């Protein structure tokens, strides 16, 4: 299990292409981050930019946590698989198949986002917090219908 550096995020994503991997910056900064700007794209823009020119080269997209990894496996891109790998206490890993696409798909794209929440409690504003992570894929079946699968990781 290849761990990522420490971050305030419980999970960081990693996109594995044929010739390279793109890893979410620990602070989610874009490669061309401008500290003077009010807004910057996040690391996910780097993934999107590379994917747009190399969509056929994406092998897998992972959510990597301290001792658990969730993977959208696109080794056979027309038939995505979602699974998790957990590091056991004694070094033995547990591999769990979570979903296997039943129909052949084309134009498969990754779905990744964080579910965020901010609250006002007794009139006082709280800071946004990550409620969960969403990971999955979408694609078109042979009839042109959009099929997608998203798992929620807490």
């Amino acid at each position: 299990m290849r761990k990522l550096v420490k971050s305030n995020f419980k999970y960081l994503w990693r996109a594995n292409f044929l010739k390279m991997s793109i890893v979410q910056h620990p602070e989610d900064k874009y490669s061309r981050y401008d500290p003077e700007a009010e807004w910057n794209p996040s690391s996910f823009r780097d993934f999107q930019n590379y994917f747009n020119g190399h969509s056929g080269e994406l092998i897998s997209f992972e959510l990597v946590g301290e001792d658990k990894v969730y993977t959208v496996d696109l080794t056979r891109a027309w038939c995505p698989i979602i699974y998790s790998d957990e590091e056991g206490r004694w070094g033995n890993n547990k591999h769990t198949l979570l979903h296997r696409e039943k129909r052949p798909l084309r134009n498969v794209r990754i779905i990744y986002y964080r579910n965020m929440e901010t609250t006002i409690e007794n009139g006082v504003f709280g800071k946004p917090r990550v409620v969960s992570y969403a990971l999955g894929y979408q694609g078109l079946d042979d009839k042109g219908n959009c099929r997608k699968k998203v798992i929620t990781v807490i």
Partner: protein
Amino acid sequence: MPAIANWYEQNGEATGSPAGGVESSISSCDWKSVDSPTVPRTTAPVVAGENSFIKYIYLKFTGTFTQIANVKFAHTGGSLGDGFVLMGKVTSDYETPTDADIVGASDITSTTSIASGATVLLSTSGPNDVSPASSQTSSCYTQYIATQVQVSGDANAGDSGSVTLSVRYTEN
């Protein structure tokens, strides 16, 4: 880091087109008997038989994100107490805040899950944009979340209870 979500409030006379008020950055929000972001509730309490002034608050998303989407708002916890009605609506229309009954709002006194909350749209130009969208890919504002507390004449004396209002959204 996740996107920065800062709260703002608009107050005062509705001016311009689309109409807006005077913007203030806020760190807390109370329903009061005046239209002010700073006057404390203890100085301007809402007494039995009256309404609070309508509050127009909204979020501005800045910082680091590629897309913000699927914003929801709901009263998710707590209660103001017997005799208190909490009204709320999501709108792009700013009107000069008054203590008259808020028009077009729903009774959100009872709690609900955030998943069943009201949909809030986003705009890059402001909370009063006439064509907001369900997602944005740069710095953006939510619509106004307009709320009002209506206190019945037989409400118990003393301070109200407390409530939790939640905003849920997705980012990547």
